[in-house]
C-alpha cells in the first residue's frame, strides 16, 4: 500500500536508434533527443488502481518502467510513499512487476519462481511457505507448484507471474500489458481474475495496456496517453462521457466514436446549435451552459457521436441520410457501416428495437435515415481538437 506521485516526469532517449523510432510515432524530438514522456504529472492514491492506456509508442510502458526503476528518469521527481526514489534501485523500491512476457525463471519450478523474491529477502522458511501457498490458493495454481513454467499454459504462466509479484506484498504492483499474450477468451477470464485479486490484496496498482476495454473495466482511474503526453486523466465514466479531445474520444469506446464536419452556430437569443448537412441539432441545456461558460464562438467543429447513441429514424425533418456499406450481425445488435458525407460511420442498432424489421433489410447499398439527440453529441474544435465544453 502506498501513494505514488509523479511530478513533471520526463524521459529523453538520446541515442539515434530511438530517434528513428520516434520519428515514426510523432514523439517530440529536441536537441537532447527523443522525448518519450513529457511532463507527466499524476498522484496515485493508496490502494488505487490506475491504468495507463494508449497506442503503441505513447510512453505508457516507459512511464511504468521509470516507476519500476528499470528506466532512468531524465527529469522530474518520483515519490513512493512520500520518499523520493528517482535514484533508488528497483529492489529498494518495494514494488513488484508482472511482465507481458511473464518473465518466469524457466529453470525453476512454479514454487521456486514464487519463493525466489522471498529467499532474496532472507525470509523465514515457514513464512515463505505460508505466503507461497496462500498466493497459489488465491490464484488457483496450487496443483502446479512443482511444475516448470514450460509445462504450463499461457494463462497458468500469467497466474504464476502474478503470484510471484503478490507473495512479496509490495507497496505498488506494476503490470505491463499482462494479458496481451493471451487469447481473447482467456483474456476475459484473467481480467475478471485481476478484478477479484484486486479486492483480495491491499496494494496500489499501476496497470499498462493498449486495450481500452481492459482500461475501462479494471481502472479506478484511467490515464490516456499519446506521443508521450497525458491526454486525459479520469474515471472510466468521465473519460467516456466527457472526452477531453478528439484523440480520447476516438480511443475510448468500441466501436469508436463517429466524427462529422459540422458548424457551431448561435442564434440571437444566444443559444447554440450544430449544423450538419442541412440539419440543426440543439445541444442539451447542460452543454449550452458549458459552451456559454467557455465563451465559445461560432466556428467549424468536429462533431462526435458514439455509434450506440445514433437511432434509426423514419423519414422526416432533422434526419440524416446514409448508404449502408456493410452490415455486421452481432446477435443482439446490428453494426451498420454507413457512408455519410463521404465518411464511414458506424451505427449500432439493437435487434430488439428494429420494430419487426429483418436485419437483412439493411443490405449493402440500401439507404437509411438516422438521427441523434443534442445531449449525446461531443463538440471538438477544428484547430486543436479540444472538447469545446471542457
Amino acid at each position, binding site marked *: 500500500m502506498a501513494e505514488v506521485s509523479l511530478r513533471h516526469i520526463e524521459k529523453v532517449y538520446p541515442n539515434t536508434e530511438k530517434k528513428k523510432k520516434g520519428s515514426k510515432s510523432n514523439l517530440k524530438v529536441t536537441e537532447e533527443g527523443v522525448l518519450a514522456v513529457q511532463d507527466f504529472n499524476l498522484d496515485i492514491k493508496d490502494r488505487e488502481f490506475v491504468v495507463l492506456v494508449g497506442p503503441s509508442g505513447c510512453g505508457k510502458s516507459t512511464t511504468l518502467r521509470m516507476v*519500476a*526503476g*528499470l528506466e532512468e528518469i531524465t527529469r522530474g521527481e518520483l515519490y513512493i510513499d512520500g520518499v523520493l526514489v528517482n535514484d533508488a*534501485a*528497483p*529492489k529498494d523500491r518495494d*514494488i*513488484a*512487476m508482472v*511482465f*507481458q*512476457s511473464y*518473465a*518466469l*525463471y*524457466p*529453470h525453476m519450478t512454479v514454487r521456486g519462481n514464487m519463493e*525466489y*523474491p522471498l529467499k*532474496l*529477502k532472507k525470509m523465514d522458511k515457514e513464512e515463505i511457505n505460508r505466503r507461497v501457498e496462500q498466493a497459489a490458493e488465491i490464484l488457483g495454481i496450487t496443483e502446479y507448484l512443482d511444475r516448470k513454467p514450460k509445462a504450463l499454459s499461457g494463462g497458468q504462466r500469467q497466474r504464476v507471474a502474478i503470484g*510471484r509479484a503478490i507473495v*512479496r506484498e509490495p507497496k505498488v504492483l506494476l503490470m505491463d500489458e499482462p494479458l496481451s499474450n493471451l487469447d481473447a477468451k482467456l483474456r476475459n477470464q484473467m481480467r475478471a481474475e485481476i478484478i477479484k485479486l484486486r479486492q483480495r490484496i491491499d496494494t496500489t496498482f499501476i496497470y499498462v495496456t493498449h486495450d481500452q476495454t481492459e482500461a475501462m473495466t479494471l481502472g479506478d482511474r484511467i490515464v490516456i496517453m499519446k506521443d508521450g503526453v497525458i491526454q486525459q486523466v479520469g474515471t472510466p465514466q468521465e473519460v467516456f462521457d466527457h472526452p477531453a479531445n478528439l484523440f480520447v474520444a476516438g480511443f475510448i469506446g468500441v466501436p469508436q466514436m463517429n466524427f462529422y464536419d459540422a458548424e457551431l452556430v448561435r442564434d440571437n437569443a444566444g443559444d447554440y446549435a450544430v449544423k450538419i448537412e442541412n440539419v440543426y441539432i440543439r445541444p442539451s441545456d447542460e452543454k449550452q451552459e458549458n459552451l456559454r461558460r467557455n465563451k465559445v464562438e461560432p466556428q467549424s467543429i468536429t462533431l462526435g457521436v458514439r455509434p450506440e447513441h445514433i437511432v434509426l429514424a423514419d423519414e422526416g425533418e432533422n434526419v440524416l441520410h446514409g448508404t449502408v456499406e456493410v452490415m455486421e450481425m452481432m446477435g443482439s445488435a446490428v453494426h451498420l457501416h454507413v457512408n455519410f458525407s463521404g465518411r464511414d460511420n458506424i451505427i449500432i442498432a439493437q435487434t430488439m428495437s428494429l420494430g419487426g424489421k429483418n436485419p437483412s433489410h439493411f443490405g449493402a447499398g440500401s439507404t437509411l435515415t438516422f438521427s441523434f439527440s443534442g445531449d449525446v453529441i461531443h463538440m471538438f474544435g477544428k484547430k486543436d481538437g479540444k472538447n469545446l465544453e471542457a
Partner: protein
Amino acid sequence: MKKKTRRINGMWSVIMLIVSVLYMYPIFMVLMNSLKIESAISTSTAFELPTAETFAGLANYENAINAQGFLSSFFYTAFITITSVLAILFFCSMFAWYITRVETKVTKALYLLCAFSMVVPFQMVMFTLSSMADTLNLNTPWVLWVIYLGFGAGLAVFMFCGFMRSVPIDIEEASMIDGSSPLQTYFHIVVPLLRPTMVSVAILEAMWIWNDYLLPTLILDINKYRTISMLIQFFRGSYGRVEMGPMMACIMLAILPIIIIYLVGQKHIIKGVVAGAVKG
C-alpha cells in the same frame, strides 16, 4: 519426384559414409598398431591387422603409462584443461552478458575485437606471446589458463552472445525487481539459462586445449612440465628410433577422454552452436 529425391539422398549417404571412413581411419590405424608388437609396426606392415604372432595385448599401454611419466603429463593436461575451461566459462559468459545487455560503442567494439581474435592465426602471435609469457611468469601449468582464456575468449564470447541475444531481458529485469543484485542475477538466473551453451563451449574448448601441442611446447619448460601432446614426441629416441607401439598407445590414451567427453556432450554442441540463431 520421390524416386529422384530418394536417389539423391542415397548418394549423399554414400558420400558421407566415405568421408566418415576417411576421418575414422587414422584413429583405427592408431588403435590397431597400439595392439601390435614393435617389430610389426613398420612402413610396410602398418596397415595390416594384428595376427596371433603380432598381437601385443595391452603391453604397449603398460609401457606407455610406466615410461616417460605419462601420469604426471595426464595430470598437467587435465589441470590445464579444467582450469582453462572454467576460466573461459566464467569470464566469457559474464563478459558476453555485459556486452549484450549494455549496448555502447565500447561494448560493440569489444564484441568485434573478440570475433576478430578468432581469425588471427596462432602462428602470427606465438613468438611474442612466448616471450611475454616468460616476462609475466605465465610459463607454468598453474597459470597457463590465463593464456588459454585469451585464445578461447573469441569463440566463447561469440557463442554466449548469440545465446544471450535470444534470452528476453524481461527475465533479468524481473530478477532485479525481485531483489537481486547484478551478481545474484548472473549466478541465479543467467548462468542456469546459459547452461546448454556452457556445455557446448566447454566441450569445444576442452577438445582444443587437451589436444593442443604448439602453445604448451612454446610456453612451458619442456624439462619440467609435459602435457600429453608434448609427451608423445618423447617416444622418439636418439638416432631417429621411435617406440611406435607405446607411442600409438599413448595417442590412444590421450584421445580417449576427449572422445568420451565429446560423445557424452555432442547433442549440447549442436544445441549450443545454433542457440540464438532462430527465434524460439
